[in-house]
């Protein structure tokens, strides 16, 4: 028990993951892949398409199962735990803003559903009147004026508003880990900046551990405590804290170019 605090929050040990096993398109992505996430760390992951960054998130969340190896969350083996059970401790924001909430339900109903995460969905009133002020207060943090539109269906919001709401929804209840899956990629530049600033704010204020996959090299450099660059299922660069602070977008682009040349592109 005493060791537990020293252990990383997430541990991926000796992961093997093959796609299209048994067909001509069989491809081995991860072979003996090891990765860990420390408590309270905010990690940015970059990498070209097919480098394994989204697969890594899917393995942690349980949307994909590894062929072999083990996955531990806070010291507990979750390798075989289904995705929906892991969700109790993991929040996730997707690239597609429509994935994070229910379009036909109102903002208030979405918040109430999220507020009840991990508890029983019984026959008590779906929206507790006592909690409405709390939800309004939470929405104010987004600075989008959504606190005045709580009875509006989420489907009527813009992509940027929805993604900010998704971020709030996924962090409304206490979670161990926040997964950000290219969550600014589908937004316009202004909304994208806003969502990124909110991400930083939530991660710091709620003291969350976060893993963010992004194609935006500037975000990867500017935000987070640790930067990982993936290529063909291997972390080709992994720097943290002051080492990461010394890292620039140009450095990352240089590595990208070198990799491309090696691959003969």
């Amino acid at each position, binding site marked *: 028990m005493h060791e537990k605090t020293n252990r990383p929050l997430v541990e991926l040990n000796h992961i093997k993951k093959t796609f299209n096993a048994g067909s001509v398109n069989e491809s081995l992505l991860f072979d003996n892949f090891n990765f860990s996430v420390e408590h309270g760390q905010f990690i940015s992951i970059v990498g070209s398409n097919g480098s394994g960054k989204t697969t890594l998130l899917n393995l942690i969340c349980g949307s994909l199962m590894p062929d072999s190896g083990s996955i531990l969350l806070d010291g507990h083996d979750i390798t075989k735990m289904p995705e929906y059970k892991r*969700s109790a401790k993991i929040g*996730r924001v997707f690239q597609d803003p429509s994935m994070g909430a229910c379009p036909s339900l109102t903002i208030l109903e979405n918040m109430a559903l999220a507020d009840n995460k991990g508890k029983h*969905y019984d026959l008590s009133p779906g929206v507790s009147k006592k909690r409405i002020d709390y939800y309004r207060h939470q929405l104010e943090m987004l600075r989008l004026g959504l606190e005045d539109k709580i009875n509006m269906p989420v489907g009527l919001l813009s992509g940027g508003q929805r993604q900010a709401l998704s971020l709030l929804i996924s962090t409304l209840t206490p979670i161990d880990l926040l997964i950000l899956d290219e969550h600014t990629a589908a937004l316009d530049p202004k909304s994208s900046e806003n969502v990124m600033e909110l991400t930083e704010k939530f991660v710091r204020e709620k003291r969350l551990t976060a893993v963010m996959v992004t194609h935006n090299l500037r975000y990867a450099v500017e935000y987070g405590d640790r930067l990982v660059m993936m290529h063909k299922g291997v972390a080709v660069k992994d720097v943290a804290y002051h080492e990461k602070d010394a890292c620039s977008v140009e450095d990352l682009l240089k590595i990208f170019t070198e990799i491309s040349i090696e691959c003969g592109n």
Partner: protein
Amino acid sequence: MVFGLIETVFREGFIYALMAMGVLITYKILDFPDLSVDGTFPLGACVAAALITLGVNPWLVCILAFAAGACMGSITGILHVKLGITDLLSGILVMTASWSINLIITGGTAIFQFFKLPTIFNSGIAKALPPALYAHRQVIIVFLLAVIVKLALDGFLKTKSGLLLRAGGDNSRFITSLAHHPGHVKILGLAIGNGCTALAGCVLAQLNENADVNAGKGMVVMALAAVIIGTGVFRRVSFMKLTTMAVCGAILYKACLQIALLLGLPSIYLKLLMAVLLTLSIVSQKIGNKGGALNA
């Protein structure tokens, strides 16, 4: 004559409205094309016949018929969710199996009659009605039932469980994010949907004082048409609840069929007309959505 016709439309309309509200849950809210309805409608009728013959209180019979339908609906859900069978095929399997189950319940007879036994239409509340209203007891009782089911469903859809159900049809990923199995929500919805359908079958059987094993043919088409017509016609009425739309849709649909029969359409054409009406309502809804995709 006209008044009698209107009363017939409302009497049958309110009975089918019970089923339409159930199908509203599966089709409109969960986006699940549930064909088991064709089997659970006569199931409710057969349960009614068997239990009323045994002397069970007719209102209790309604509750038990709902429960029987809910069980069958859950089986459709389990076949789909746990065994990975497609939604349409799960419904067909349950619909086919129901045929035998219904015959087992009736003891092998296709039409089970139970004349002159206490039903919801001739005992209890019906008997307590003042003489002036007694002649209209059938339409009054089915109206009451439709109101009760509507209010119960409206109330349910506002609970935590109900909100989760509505979320399930909208974005099943969101259910997973809420640490809940998205399939379990589907099973619950199918149980409620088929419970309502069996209740409709039970009420119709009590009205006719017989249960017809064949009564389920075309029920999916009828219920879907009621739901699509109701939600299509009244979608601009913002204060109207979905359940009210389904009830109104069922009555409008029944009115269309009655008018067609009145204009001299031979009854053998009825099912053809039902299919045409559903097709027309889907197509008109598609045009209303400006050619948007429709998963009907």
